[in-house]
């Protein structure tokens, strides 16, 4: 917000300077013209920013500026700030002002913010990948899984081999990951390997209900991973008896993908934030920035649900 205010103030200063130059070119400096320039620029930039925040199209923004410019010019003229100028000239000044404002707004507000968004998206993707790597390749997870393999080697060699294979696949996938998005099917395949390791190590059961239509929908890479991990660590594993995690994906008529990760654990502790909050923050932020999805956490019927809804992306 502060950055925006500074950018708008700078743009206003530029508009004021333009007015001064304009005045010099035509005679003595006219203070009311400078005030007009600065004030109208400030109002227009604020208005354009507000409209932009409501996700209106660029065309709407471009059309709004001249209309607002003309309206402001007439307002100023009526207040007596334009002397005896004919209406035609007032309209011209307003139009000119509006067009300049669009340019100033694009330079001062829209472009830097778009760039910042791209940079942050990139940063978040990297953060999500790192979180995934940390989760799956962190010493604790690896060493505990190796210990389980050692424990199962004698009595349950089949399960020991399955663990080795799942661990190998996870490592390979973690090192091969490329691109910002991938198909849901790829995300689910990754999650299933992680889930299999958890199933063998703990008394946790996974249920998968992935509608076929959803498999080719593209989602940000590793978006669901923190949700599943959270459901395991802070949900299912806290169950005294059999913990359960279910993952469902459906596609509704409006082509919105809905993924739900549900666990039967005792629910978020009320006294302190769940330790997984950082991972969940990451999910929320990535969806917000992508501009096409929402995330929420629900507690009902003794179950905790993480729900992600995403408008279908082009593959």
């Amino acid at each position, binding site marked *: 917000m502060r950055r925006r205010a500074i950018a708008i103030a700078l743009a206003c200063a530029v508009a004021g300077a333009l007015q001064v130059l304009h005045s010099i070119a035509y005679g003595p400096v006219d203070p009311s013209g400078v005030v007009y320039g600065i004030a109208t620029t400030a109002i227009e930039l604020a208005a354009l920013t507000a409209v932009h925040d409501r996700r209106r199209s660029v065309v709407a923004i471009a059309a709004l500026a001249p209309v607002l410019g003309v309206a402001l010019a007439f307002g100023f003229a009526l207040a007596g700030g334009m002397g005896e100028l004919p209406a035609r000239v007032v309209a011209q000044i307003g139009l000119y002002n509006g067009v300049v404002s669009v340019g100033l707004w694009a330079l001062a507000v829209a472009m830097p913010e778009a760039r910042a968004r791209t940079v942050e998206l990139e940063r978040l993707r990297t953060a999500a990948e790192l979180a995934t790597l940390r989760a799956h390749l962190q010493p604790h997870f690896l060493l505990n899984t190796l210990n389980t393999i050692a424990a199962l080697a004698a*009595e349950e060699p089949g399960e020991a081999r399955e663990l080795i294979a799942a661990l190998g696949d996870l490592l390979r996938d973690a090192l091969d990951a490329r691109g910002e998005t991938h198909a849901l099917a790829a995300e689910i395949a990754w999650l299933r390997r992680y889930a299999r390791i958890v199933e063998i190590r703990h008394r946790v059961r996974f249920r998968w209900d992935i509608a076929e239509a959803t498999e080719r929908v593209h989602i940000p890479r590793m978006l669901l991973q923190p949700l599943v991990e959270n459901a395991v660590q802070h949900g299912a594993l806290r169950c005294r008896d059999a913990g359960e995690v279910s993952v469902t994906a459906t596609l509704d008529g409006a082509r919105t993908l809905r993924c739900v990760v549900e666990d039967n654990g005792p629910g978020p502790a009320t006294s302190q934030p769940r330790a997984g909050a950082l991972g969940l923050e990451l999910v929320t932020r990535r969806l917000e920035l992508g501009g096409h999805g929402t995330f929420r956490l629900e507690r009902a019927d003794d179950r905790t649900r993480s729900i992600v809804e995403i408008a279908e992306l082009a593959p």
Partner: protein
Amino acid sequence: MRVLVVEDEWAARNYLVELIEATGVAQVAGAVATADDAREAIAAIAPDVVFVDIQLAGGGADGLALVREARAPAYVLATAHPEHALDAYQLGVVDYVLKPFTAERVAQCLDRVRARVPARAQAGATAPVRIVGRRKRALVFLRVDEVWAFEAADRLASVHSTRGTFDVDLSLAAIEASLGAALVRVHRNWLVNVEHVRELDGELLVGDALRVPVARERATAVRDLLLANTAGLRRR
């Protein structure tokens, strides 16, 4: 030395119990999965040393909280990573055993514990071994002579006893490792206390009314073992 094992993961818990028993210098007096159960078990069975996993179910460092709160003669931390090392030594942790466990690491660790634990504790090795049973959240501590049989089903084990049936947080292999002498494996899923066998008729009748199947390939061995322990029966 009598050991209590606190480890949330089924396979790791059984493995550690087997490795401790295999050293021959210590006996596992109980094995539980959560810090809450551990508090109760420490009070009930007074172990000489407690092996505890730092990260018990659901992350965090519950194990360390247990070390901080519950008084026991000695603690050994079983962990993937020797973090919190300073904290731990100040709390009186005697040693670490790192994952993945091996017979050698556990043996070394028990040697170190033996050098540090008061002599009283080592003399107490003959105190009766208890079996920790669980029904919902309540724990019971059974003497071996109260046990009729242990039954396994998938990853659940239960103990049938004169006091009823309870869940047990150990595999049959681990139970066999710690109570071996008194028990006989009559079936893949059954360990029976020979003392309580009353009839052999295809299956076994154990205790009051517990019917236990005998695996075909083990039938002869079981029969011979029972007869060897019995006087007054005529061998056909």
